[in-house]
């Protein structure tokens, strides 16, 4: 369960996209954070991922206060619990698809053979096995998106955070991504998706929609 209690985030310069925000997300729930650009959706996801710290307030995930974790512990927590799908994918351009997917598991001590086998499994489930050894810079937008999803899933996370996942996709790819999200939800993962794409919202009718505005 994700619990945010009176969370405020003020950036240098005094901008506060989030102010006194509270939220509870149950395990296995799908939540869509909807709102305009700059409304604080990405900030909320970054806070849940312990990528940034709040200015005040508590963020607890499964009983662990993640807002106060020192950086080394936050990195470990992310690696074991969270999968993040970024809007612009953040893939490493000089690596192949399978190599990109392997990256999160490199520090775990697993053998390269095991890591690659896991990565190939996930790529297959996303119909990307034939692109495994292609450099990601040569993949289409949709293929890059699926590579990013595969990377988010490699550590088998309980929570998936997706930031504007359809922003760079056409209609067909959006539908395909929606199917992927449904499958993740059926597997019992908690999904938190930040989007202002109404098509995605409509395609996930079971999702709880939380509308957020400036300075929530």
């Amino acid at each position, binding site marked *: 369960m994700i619990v945010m*209690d*009176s969370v*405020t985030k003020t950036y240098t310069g005094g901008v506060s996209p989030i102010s006194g925000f509270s939220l509870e997300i149950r395990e296995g729930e799908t939540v869509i954070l909807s709102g305009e650009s700059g409304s604080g959706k990405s900030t909320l996801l970054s806070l849940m991922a312990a990528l940034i*710290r*709040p*200015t*005040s*307030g*508590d963020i607890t995930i499964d009983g662990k206060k993640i*807002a*106060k*974790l*020192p950086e*080394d*512990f936050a990195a470990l927590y992310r690696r074991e619990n969270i999968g993040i799908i970024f809007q612009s994918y953040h893939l490493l351009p000089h690596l192949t698809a399978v190599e990109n997917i392997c990256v999160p598991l490199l520090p775990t001590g697993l053998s390269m053979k095991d890591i690659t086998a896991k990565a190939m499994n996930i790529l297959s489930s996303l119909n990307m096995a034939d692109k495994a050894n292609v450099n990601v810079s040569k993949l289409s937008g949709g293929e890059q998106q699926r590579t990013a999803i595969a990377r988010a899933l490699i550590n088998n996370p309980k929570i998936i955070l997706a930031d504007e996942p359809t922003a760079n996709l056409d209609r067909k790819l959006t539908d395909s991504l929606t199917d992927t999200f449904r499958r993740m939800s059926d597997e019992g993962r908690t999904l938190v998706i930040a989007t202002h794409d109404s098509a995605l919202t409509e395609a996930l009718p079971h999702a709880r929609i939380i509308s957020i505005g400036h300075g929530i």
Partner: protein
Amino acid sequence: MSFLIPEVYILFLSDIILLVFISISLFISAGIIRNWDFASSADRQYRLEKRSALVSVLIKYSLALKIPLFILFIYAEDKLADVLPGAMCAAGSVNATPYGKLLLYMKIFNIYFFSVWLVINRLDMKTEDLRYTRLKHMLIPFVFVCFAAELTLFVLNFAGIDPAVPVSCCTALFTSESSVFLSIGGRNSFIIFSINYVLLSLFFIFRRHTLYFITNFIYFFTSIISLILFTGTYVYELPTHLCPFCLLQGGYWYVGYLFYTLLFLGTFFGVSAFITKLVSGKSSEYIQRQSFIFNSLYFILSVYYPLSYFLSHRTWL
């Protein structure tokens, strides 16, 4: 106020910069000691956590810089001997004013003390609840006082050196002084040092952590005394040459830097292992092993010189 050589100016300016960093840290630490409450989610606590991280960085780099600066200090003392009449090595310049020896001892003490702070800081960063934060900040005032005392002694010493006044050379200093350690004699000092090393090895093998720490502490002194009274004479190949500083000169391949670096690392890791046990209650086999490795390398180096002399000359000095 003149400091005679450029290296002393570099040391002085570096210490002034570090003092500014430590003063800022002192100011921030005062707030952290008063208001730290890790359980709180108030904005003040988050601010304190960020400031604590800043202090850690400032102090960590200040203290880490003290080690190369200490080497520069020794080099400067050695170079200063060139401009002081009568001085043959750093021994002359260290004894040029009444503050020189105090400054040297203070610098050695501070390096170990600051290293202890670094160990506590490392332990703190390894805990999820930053449980040693208050402790490490409570030590900052002592860090400041020690650092300020060192800087005061630095100014008193180097500003007080008069290049027109002759100083004594190392042989004169170490043979005229009627200190206790000189009366031990070269071979005896080496035997004591060797027994110390054997005990150190036994306590390491049988994992007696507290006894290892005590022997490690004594090892620092027995090794330096043995270096001056016994091993050093084989480096110089002269039984009357008793000096801990000439080893640092090019004529002896700067081997002193190797001796002192190994000794520092060995004893430092020994202290670190003890502090880790004392603060966290957990013994660190890894750190203690590092200590034993460096102490052993120091011992091997100390044995190498007399042994190689004996093998090539078939006699002891």
